[in-house]
């Protein structure tokens, strides 16, 4: 294909991506270095206060007021602020203070153990919104990834070993958590764990006492991670299941003739054959895990579990600060680039090798 024809074919698609992904990204970088405020001036306001008997007292006060332009609109000042937005988001000063804080003694002068010092450090660092969000985002990504790989592989092997007619219904049920709207999926779990809902009621009935799942950081975080595993395992399963269909049968038979056990066949033939699929799943899942949003929104309370995407969303909507949100967004993008760099380099080499 000639380059001219090629450009004509990819044109609309590239235009859409440049216009609505690349240009906005540049815009966000620009926003993140700026700020705006309404220009104010100090105005002298004279007011007369009636005293008594028709007498009035005139007072002069100095009051800040927005400057209005000729249309009566407040004048906005747009300024370059350098890294100030980044400072407010990532709070490097607070981070340094948290790290260098002296924790060798408790408040009443007792020496602290290593464990206590680490706990204190962890608490102070994650107290800063950005670092807390980063912590849970990475925690989520790195806990769910091995879980979905193991669980997905186990399911794929087991489904592959049952009789044909039952596989269809099995795959159907398995796909549900993956296909159904993430907000709805999160809610369906959330509604099971409300204080008076099914799980808490059942546990109480069986004598476990009253458990409040949604009032505690550890249980909320566990629920979000479990939701993640539940939501993404089907994806890993389907890919590995399809991969299993392509395992060369003659290699397996040769291994059996040589007396390889079931585990040896899994370990030395099947897993190496699926290696590329495992790294594909890791790549896609890291991307998706890094932008976890819906469960954090639904399980509520960024107090207990926050994610980077939720943090930016929060700044954008509730603090209504575009500039700070832009800085937070840029830090998020830098994070994903660092996280994906090794995987991207690998993809680059593989694709280059093919092309």
């Amino acid at each position, binding site marked *: *294909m000639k380059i001219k024809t*090629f450009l*004509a074919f*990819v*044109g609309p*698609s*590239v235009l*859409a*991506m440049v216009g*609505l992904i690349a240009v*906005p990204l540049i*815009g*966000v970088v620009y*926003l993140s270095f700026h700020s705006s405020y309404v220009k104010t001036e100090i105005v002298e306001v004279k007011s007369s206060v009636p005293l008594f008997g028709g007498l009035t007292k005139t007072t002069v006060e100095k009051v800040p007021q927005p400057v209005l332009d000729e249309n009566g609109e407040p004048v906005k000042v747009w300024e370059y602020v350098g890294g100030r937005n980044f400072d407010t988001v990532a709070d490097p000063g607070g981070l340094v203070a948290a790290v260098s804080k002296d924790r060798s003694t408790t408040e009443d002068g007792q020496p602290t153990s290593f464990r206590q010092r680490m706990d204190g450090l962890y608490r102070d660092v994650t107290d800063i919104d950005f670092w807390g969000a980063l912590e849970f985002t990475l925690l989520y990504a790195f806990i769910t990834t091995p879980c979905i790989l193991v669980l997905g592989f186990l*399911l794929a092997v*087991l489904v592959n*070993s049952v009789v044909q007619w039952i596989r269809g219904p*099995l795959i159907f*049920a*398995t796909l*549900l*958590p993956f*296909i*159904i*709207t*993430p*907000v*709805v999926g999160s*809610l*369906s779990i959330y*509604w099971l764990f409300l204080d008076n809902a*099914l799980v808490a*009621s*059942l546990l*109480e*009935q069986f004598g476990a006492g009253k458990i409040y799942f949604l009032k505690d950081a550890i249980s909320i975080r566990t629920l979000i991670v479990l939701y993640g595993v*539940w939501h993404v395992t089907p994806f890993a399963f*389907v890919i590995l*299941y*399809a*991969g299993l269909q392509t395992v060369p*049968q003659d290699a397996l038979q040769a291994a059996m003739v040589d007396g390889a056990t*079931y585990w040896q066949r899994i370990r030395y033939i099947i897993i190496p054959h699926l290696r590329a699929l495992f790294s*594909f799943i890791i790549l896609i899942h890291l991307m998706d895990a*890094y*932008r976890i*949003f819906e469960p954090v*929104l639904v399980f509520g309370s960024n107090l207990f579990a926050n994610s980077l*995407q939720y943090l*930016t969303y929060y700044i*954008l909507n509730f603090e209504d600060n*575009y500039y700070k949100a*832009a800085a937070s*967004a840029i830090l998020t*993008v830098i994070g*994903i680039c660092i996280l*994906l760099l090794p995987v*991207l380099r690998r*993809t680059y080499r593989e*694709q280059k090798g093919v092309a």
Partner: protein
Amino acid sequence: MTTNLPKPLKPFTTAFLGFWVFLAAFPFLWMFLISFRAPVDAFSFPPKLFAPITLEHFYTVWILDGFWKQALNTTIVTLGTVTVSLTIGCLAGYGLSRYRGNLGFWILIIALVFRAMPHVVMLVAYKPAFWAMGIWNRYETLIIVLVAINQPFTIWMLRSFFVNIPEELDQAALVDGCNRVQTFVKVIMPVMWPGVITTGLFSFLLAYNDFLISSQLMSGDHMTMTAALSNYIFSDDSLAKLMHGVAGAVSITIPLIFLVLFFQRYIVAGLTHGAVKG
């Protein structure tokens, strides 16, 4: 792979698969069940397996709160997104699969990076820009945004389908006097339907399931179903309102269940395609 699992593992298989199916389906089943109940029965102690049935929540949500309007909005947005996505995606996918130069490779790598972008990053720019341009809260805006966000994934997937169509087919058509566009429309597209259906399904899912972008770019009468759910779940803690949320969530789920029922084969094909073959 052969199906001979070691004998002692057979009962384990049944138990594990049974447990997994229960885990996968139960939250949805329970949601369906309680959506037809009075609030007291839905969150009762001890929990009830059977309770009187009522359609009250669905009536309130669909008729009184006008959920039908949001369903209509969702239909417009998803259909628009799927159509535009597939049109420009097929063109690009075909180009990428037939072009041998370096540029195509770089477009794919950059698309992969774009695929990783958290959507809220773009939203930070969209909000002030769309507001200033006065294209806030319009179907076209949401559709074109969803199309763009969806493009990286779409072109990767469509390309892997096009790669599997032998180039001899193109050459035969070109020799017979077709130009590139004619070849694409008359020769290649007719054998691409499985790929188009699969990719279309995923575009549909992305547009239908999107919460973040839709809830931010649309408001009032233009809200989509998924975005409208936030009206019910984040407003207050009254149980009646929560039950309306359950009915809304069930309404959103039903079309998806049918989608999986009818297109399971294509969804599996799509998920495995990129990984196994390309």
